[in-house]
């Protein structure tokens, strides 16, 4: 019986894997196909790969510029959210103060609202203060989305750090800032890394606000990728190559920080 169970388990995992990986495979493989192979029906599984689509993409100043824009926005929004969110998480994890649970709920409730509800008000505000079509407006808006994630994950992470460490540090003369900087931040790296990955991926992939708040100057990669879909023809090869290029940085980033996601860094602290 256990053998059959294991087999079923394996088969299930394989099925889920196939379903999740297939669109990705389709995008990557299509990006190396010629337009003829792409539109062939039934689809061709074996084909002679071409780099023409990529040449097309990188020749397009719009795509290159959009990737730079996306990078600027994602790095700054994620970075600032971490800088602002970790001290907030530290306070929520370790201090008792009036309105603490309300504040906590407020952070989390920011994620309850459907983004589209706020799109118009934010557009009007941005227009009135002259921030439309700037990096800054996207960074500010994305921070409001990423900050709750950072606060949420890091509060949890900081709470798991044994309190004895903080007390030992206090006895040794460490200030509250020392405790945050020298103990909670280094030990909170797994949580900070996870929230940074989520934040970066969110910023990188966000389409709605990028579409609404930008025109020409700071269009981000997802906006540009969808822009190919207008017009009389659908350049599937270029769209797929752009898609692949967009996915690449997040994948690399996730792989880089996943090393830090391993919990258990606190092992050996106590006991």
């Amino acid at each position, binding site marked *: 019986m256990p053998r059959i169970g294991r087999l079923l388990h394996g088969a299930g995992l394989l099925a889920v894997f196939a379903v999740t990986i297939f669109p990705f495979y389709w995008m990557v493989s299509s990006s190396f196909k010629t337009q003829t192979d792409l539109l062939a029906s039934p689809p061709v599984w074996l084909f002679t790969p071409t780099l023409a689509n990529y040449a097309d993409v990188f020749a397009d100043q719009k795509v290159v510029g959009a990737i730079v824009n996306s990078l600027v926005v994602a790095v700054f929004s994620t970075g600032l959210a971490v800088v602002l969110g970790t001290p907030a998480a530290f306070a929520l994890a370790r201090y008792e103060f009036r309105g603490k649970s309300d504040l906590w709920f407020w952070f989390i409730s920011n994620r309850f609202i459907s983004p589209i509800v706020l799109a118009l008000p934010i557009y009007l505000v941005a227009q009135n203060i002259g921030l439309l079509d700037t990096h800054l407006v996207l960074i500010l808006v994305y921070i409001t989305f990423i900050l709750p994630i950072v606060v949420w994950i890091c509060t949890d992470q900081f709470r798991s750090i044994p309190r*004895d460490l903080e007390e030992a540090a*206090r*006895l*040794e003369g460490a200030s509250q800032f020392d405790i945050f900087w020298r103990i909670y931040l280094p030990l909170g790296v797994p949580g900070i890394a996870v929230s940074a990955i989520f934040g970066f991926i969110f910023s990188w992939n966000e389409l709605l606000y990028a579409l609404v708040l930008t025109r020409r100057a700071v269009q981000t990669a997802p906006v540009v990728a969808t822009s190919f879909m207008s017009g009389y023809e659908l350049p599937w090869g270029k769209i797929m190559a752009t898609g692949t290029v967009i996915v690449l940085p997040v994948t690399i980033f996730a792989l880089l920080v996943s090393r830090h996601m391993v919990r258990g860094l606190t092992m050996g*602290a106590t006991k």
Partner: protein
Amino acid sequence: MSFLRLEGIEKRYGAASVINGVSISAREGEFVVFVGPSGCGKSTLLRMIAGLEEVTAGEVFIDGARVTELEPAKRKVSMVFQSYALFPHMTVRDNIAFGLKMSKVPRAEIERQVAEAARILQMEPLLDRKPRQLSGGQRQRVAIGRAIVRHPKLFLFDEPLSNLDAELRAQMRVEIARLHRELGVTMVYVTHDQVEAMTLADRIVVLRAGRVEQVGSPDELYDAPGNIFVAGFIGSPKMNLVAATVTARNGAALTLANPSLVAPLQVMGRHGGGVQPGPGVGDTVLLGLRPEHLMLGDGPNRMELVADLSESLGGSTLVYAQTRAAEPVVLQAAGRQTLGKGEMFTAGFDAARAYVFNKDGLAF
């Protein structure tokens, strides 16, 4: 003059009272042990000395200065935690140097101090390791190292050995005693283990439910426990308590009878009969006899017991038995003894080593 003084310390969490008016003091260089069952408030008391816990009422004095509201770092105390509380992301060297760095001690001086601590604790080869690469005993040593480099006025230990196995515990106990001798610093040590208390302490403070039950040297507490609680807590195995009836009284001298006693027992109150109310003729009292003071066979006084079980410890044997009134009695006999279940035997003892407690559990 007392070096550490607690005056009328109280601690309440809302309606729950944890410490109910504790006043104790320690001389400079003294090794004081707080002992008591879990939940008696001994760790809370220690944390209040450290400043990690606020006092609800009362005052704390260290080296003549009132420190009741002073923040922990300014009290010049070091604490070794039960969990060791080592910083897991720092090397042993950085863990030990942490407090010195916080006090902005020059680097050369830090290095000298760390090297000195490493030498005292024999852990020079471990300096560049992380805590997770150390054994429990080594981590303990690092925690002590972190405490000694700051040259505190007062060392606080919060059940430091309870996470170690028996052998290491005994070894570290000796090391802590050696450290105390070498440094000559006042130490306050919290434990629930009466063996640690007996072996390490100059003075033991026995706590129960947030109150001091008795303060005294290990020998004082062993020889003259003030009440049943202290009598049961100090000494292992626990003191036997059997009910007896007072048949005569002459000042501090009582004559006791019990169905298991072969003859009426003449016993003198250790506290001079000062305990009120003193037992009178016809009153029931508790007769306390330590297992190690009961001998198999003859003695000046004798009890008849029925054996239940005997456990050989190699060099001695623990005999679990019952009186005629089915009260459990443990006896520690020399050598190996084989007493089967239900076997009748006689246990002898010296009346000078018997304790009497009145019906309220206070020593007579």
